């Protein structure tokens, strides 16, 4: 395997001298994909058959691409050839390869990887069940739509400009402020939202239905509207804002304002998640704890919270993610001091797309890494989500 990779790599390096690095890299990706898929296919359908296919593929490559100088023709023939050998994985991969390099040129690499994965999954799944194939295909299409811009952003960023961006003092302070405010906001929602979630699940009180709807309101309200509402309530020229300002507390254009706006938009995620986690703890378990001598408070802290910690923590991660990505209400309520997303928007409006890209890439990498880290953290703490109490 290693030997084959080394030899193929060496051949493509040699080709780079002849064709130029760009074309050689593209060819390398294509041939690599064919080789990897072929290896899998060979173990299934027999070595001889695959050797025959590989020989034909090389023949096409040499004669049609180099000999006749028509890479498009080569692509089409390779697809037909792979189809004739009944290797749908390779036929599809080559087609996707051609499409992504001709149509989605800037996103070619991430698009090729994602779409090939989709294709392989589709071939694997539809082999057995049709409905499964459809659901998988539909689901993956959504994943491609959401992942493609993010992967493209990261893949096409120039490492040099990334490094330059990281060393910028404004950007670093913006990132720092974002992390700090999102963390404070999440802590605030944990402190106040989690008890509310418990009350919503376990108690009956007047106005509960109203409150239940109100919890989701921040998701419904456009973010700019939320910012305007907060500004109308807490702005420097309003009664409440004036009162706060007289004791030295500024909401608009301050870190406190950022936290308030973030709490506003992110609270539903944690509260809803905590509510479903609490609802999954059967009342019988709480009753057992109480008859053993635990007061309601002790039962809540020693039994209910640990049992729903998985759900609360996933809610906290979502809440944090929502807080750090908030822009709309901050643009109205607290544009300065700048959080990272505002900073990126600021650069975009002032200097344009290319200048905003590196900062965006860094923010995506950082947030994605933290998000995955928190999700990973959840499991070793034995806080697995969605236990059953049957």
């Amino acid at each position, binding site marked *: 395997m290693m030997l084959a990779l080394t030899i193929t790599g060496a051949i493509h390096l040699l080709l780079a001298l002849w064709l130029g690095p760009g074309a050689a890299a593209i060819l390398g990706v294509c041939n690599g994909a064919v080789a990897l898929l072929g290896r899998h296919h060979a173990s299934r359908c027999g070595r001889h058959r695959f050797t025959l296919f590989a020989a034909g593929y090389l023949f096409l490559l040499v004669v049609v691409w180099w000999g006749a100088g028509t890479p498009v023709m080569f692509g089409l023939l390779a697809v037909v050839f792979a189809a004739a050998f009944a290797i749908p994985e390779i036929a599809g991969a080559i087609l996707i390869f051609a499409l992504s390099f001709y149509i989605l040129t800037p996103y070619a690499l991430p698009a090729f990887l994602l779409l090939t994965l989709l294709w392989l999954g589709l071939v694997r799944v539809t082999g057995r069940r049709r409905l499964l194939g459809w659901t998988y295909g539909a689901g993956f299409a959504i994943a491609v739509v959401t992942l493609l811009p993010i992967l493209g952003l990261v893949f096409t960023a120039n490492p040099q400009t990334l490094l330059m961006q990281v060393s910028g003092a404004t950007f670093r302070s913006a990132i720092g402020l974002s992390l700090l405010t999102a963390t404070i906001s999440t802590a605030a929602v944990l402190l106040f939202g989690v008890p509310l979630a418990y009350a919503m699940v376990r108690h009956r009180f007047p106005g509960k239905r109203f409150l239940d709807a109100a919890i989701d309101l921040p998701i419904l309200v456009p973010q700019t509207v939320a910012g305007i509402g907060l500004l109308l309530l807490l702005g420097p020229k309003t009664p409440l804002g004036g009162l706060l300002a007289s004791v030295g507390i500024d909401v608009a254009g301050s870190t406190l304002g950022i936290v308030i706006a973030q709490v506003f938009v992110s609270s539903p995620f944690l509260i809803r998640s905590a509510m479903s986690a609490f609802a999954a703890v059967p009342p*019988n378990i709480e*009753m*057992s*704890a109480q*008859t053993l001598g635990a*007061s309601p408070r002790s039962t809540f802290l020693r039994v209910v919270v640990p049992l729903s910690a998985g759900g609360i923590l996933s809610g906290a991660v979502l809440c944090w993610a929502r807080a750090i990505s908030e822009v709309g209400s901050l643009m109205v309520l607290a544009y300065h001091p700048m959080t990272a997303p505002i900073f990126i928007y600021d650069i975009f409006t002032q200097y344009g797309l290319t200048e905003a890209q590196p900062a965006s890439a860094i923010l995506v990498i950082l947030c994605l890494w933290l998000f995955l880290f928190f999700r990973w953290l959840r499991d070793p703490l034995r806080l697995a989500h969605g236990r059953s109490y049957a």
Partner: protein
Amino acid sequence: MSRSPCLDVRSLTRVFGGFALREITFDVDAGEYVAIVGPCGAGKTLLMETIAGFHDHPAATIFLQGQDAESLPPERRHLGYLCQGNTLFEHLSVRENIRFGLRYLRGAVRGHAEGRIERLLPLLGIKRLFDRPDTGNLSGGEARLVALARALAPGPRLLLMDEPIHSLDVAVAKRVLRVLARIPAETGVPVLHITHDIAEVERCADRLVVLDRGVVVQAGRLRELRRRPATRFAAELAASENLFEIPAGLRVLELNGCRIAVDRLPAGTGGLLGVLDPERLELVPSPSPGASGRVVGIRETAGGAEVRIAIDGRRLTVHLPPDRMLGELMYLGAPVKLRVPERALHLLREEKR
């Protein structure tokens, strides 16, 4: 001086939305095993939860060792409560589960509880589970026994159990029931066990309380319930034998040559139900006077034999002690005469549903 019972429920009435418990009265004495039996929707679990303190109730209706429990919250009633289903705390180990209640005990009482756990583990047969780091892979029966140990560890005044063998395998359920039956004697904790299936508590319960639609229909020993049921419901639940309907207005029941007076009850509307006590019925060889019938089934039991006879299309069961087996006369198809002493007949008026 009479000692007050461990649990004394006195005409407890409590309305829950569209359902009500009405005039519930029963008690559980020290060392007793009492079962509350009733169908789904009889209010068993609500009654249990009210006793445990999860629903408020009027003063002077529930007494725990003579103390009015009205103002006591669940955590201060000192009752063991084994709820339905698996209620183990999954974030704790088996040991932490069993010792959960000990944190709320003080000083010497806590020391006693430690010793109690030492004795409970072998009694419940869960010694080898005690060091399991988590409760996730316990089987249904094991989980139930661990929950039982947890409920008993703090030394409760009374153990409440809500369908303790619900959804367990038959073999496991039998084993758990054997353990349950020993609890009052071995730990001194009286038991109140609720179930929909009377067969479950047939062996272990000292007394039964039959609950139907929020009302105590009858309370007493199983034997008493079976021979002298208070209502058709109690008769059917306790699987009373020789139950038959008597049409309204009938004064004498003809049973193939035997006349039984059935006009003992004060006049009322509706029909009557009669129950013939299988232990008080007498079988005599064919030429004697009595209702003539044929033996259609014989089954030997621990206390003699159970003989099924057919009279006039009716099938009746007669329990015979070993010394009255009638020897060779008792074979399938043998003609026999049945004598019905007056005290063998229990009459009740059909309740209106």
